């Protein structure tokens, strides 16, 4: 099990903070853990807080992609917020900043659901 996700509920929105790095070592476990969290939570609204995510490789993008696919399949919504500069660059190159509505802060993102 991945130990780099901290989740909490903000009203009907599940906020998951992803911590550390998403790379070849951690991506698979983190993705499985996040998908499990999403499946076990009744909320269809999920916000990924990236303020403590230091690095994401192209392989690590699968964490966001698979979570988005799972939520889209069940009519849910995934949003991102608070990306650190290196993570934001990767999100921009892969267009995930616009596809997943990347916001500057948690409060901003919560208000956008």
């Amino acid at each position, binding site marked *: 099990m991945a130990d780099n996700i901290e989740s909490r509920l903000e009203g009907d929105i599940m906020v998951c903070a992803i911590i550390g790095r998403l790379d070849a070592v951690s991506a698979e476990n983190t993705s499985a853990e996040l998908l499990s969290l999403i499946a076990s939570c009744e909320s269809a609204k999920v916000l990924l807080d990236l303020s403590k995510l230091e690095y994401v*490789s192209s392989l690590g993008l699968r964490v966001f992609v698979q979570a988005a696919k799972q939520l889209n399949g069940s009519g849910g919504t995934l949003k991102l917020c608070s990306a650190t500069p290196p993570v934001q660059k990767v999100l921009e190159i892969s267009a995930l900043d616009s596809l997943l509505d990347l916001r500057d802060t948690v409060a901003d993102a919560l208000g956008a659901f």
Partner: protein
Amino acid sequence: MTEQAVPEISDKRHPVRVLLVDDQRMVGEAVRRMVADEEWLEYSYCQKPEEAIAMAESFQPTVILQDLVMPGIDGLTLVEQYKQHEQLKHVPAIVLSSQEDPVVKAESFTRGANDYLVKLPDRIELLARIKHHSEGYIHLLERNAAFEALAENQRILAGELAEAADYVRSLLPAPTQGPVNIRWDFESCSSVGGDSFGYRWLDDDNLIIYLLDVCGHGVGAALLSVSVMNALGNESLGNVDFKQPNAVLACLNDVFEMERHNNMYFTMWYGVYNRHSRELRYASAGHPPALLYRAGQAEPECLVTPALPVGTMPGLPFKEKTTYIAADDRLYVYSDGVYEVQYQDGREMTLEDFMPLLSKPLASGPDGLKQIRDTVATIQQSDIFEDDFSLVELTFQ
């Protein structure tokens, strides 16, 4: 203690073998009788100390019972010889002595004995000590065998990975001269990454150039990379127009949907250069920007069209952009492995750190691009890259 207290050793690959070295035939016979009913144990007796080493070599004992006082050579000298012998050095040696003397015991252990028994010992105690020491030795043999098997598997795996890397390399096009001079530097990482690239003239006017990086390492990533290369090289993508970068990426995105390819996907940069119009059309998917250095300018133009990596989500549209090329412009297409390394202080190297390395034209010849790899290797203080290093340079006439 009863006889039932001594459990049997059931390991069939390494039977318990006991070698007694003692000049007194009577002792040899007494020990033989003690172990005669033990089917889990093989017993051999050596009466002549000068034959002990040769006999141990052939019998391969799991424990040696060594008499202390013998004619011609003393038992502890033999113990020392066992411990210096390549084949026997780890075989436990139990000294059999007629003396219950702490000084002799201490010397025995100092000179390599693993245990000390006053003879003749009680049968149950003897069997228990044989079992204890043999089990330890057998575990050592099994561990060594497991390590050897693991090392052999690693050698085989490394060989197969090297073969996969060589195959990918064999598919890469040769450097070329002409309206566009193209050269490259490619180094596969130790676990084989998923990088590959290609370029060719579609006709007299249009050159295509592409580079892809399958996310992940290993033979699986290399196989997918080769599949994509073949699809592009053989133009086996249906009716797609290879002069339209966004159409090519969209087609690849549908053909190589990750759910149908073991959840693998890839980033990619694809461009088409028309030498008459000097137009360069390009599209990218999750890939770092190609860097276009105009003649005389140190800062590059970053050629990128943001999009998800190829294969991640079917049906996504891809955009393309156009720029114009002047004589002596240099274009670099690469994978993130060329700069995603760590400085010695743990800081990540960034694309912005990498760009200045290319700001001036590189030395001509095959080593020109290798200078860049050497510089990055110096930064990470290692010649071994954790990701494939792929760097392609196009210089336009």
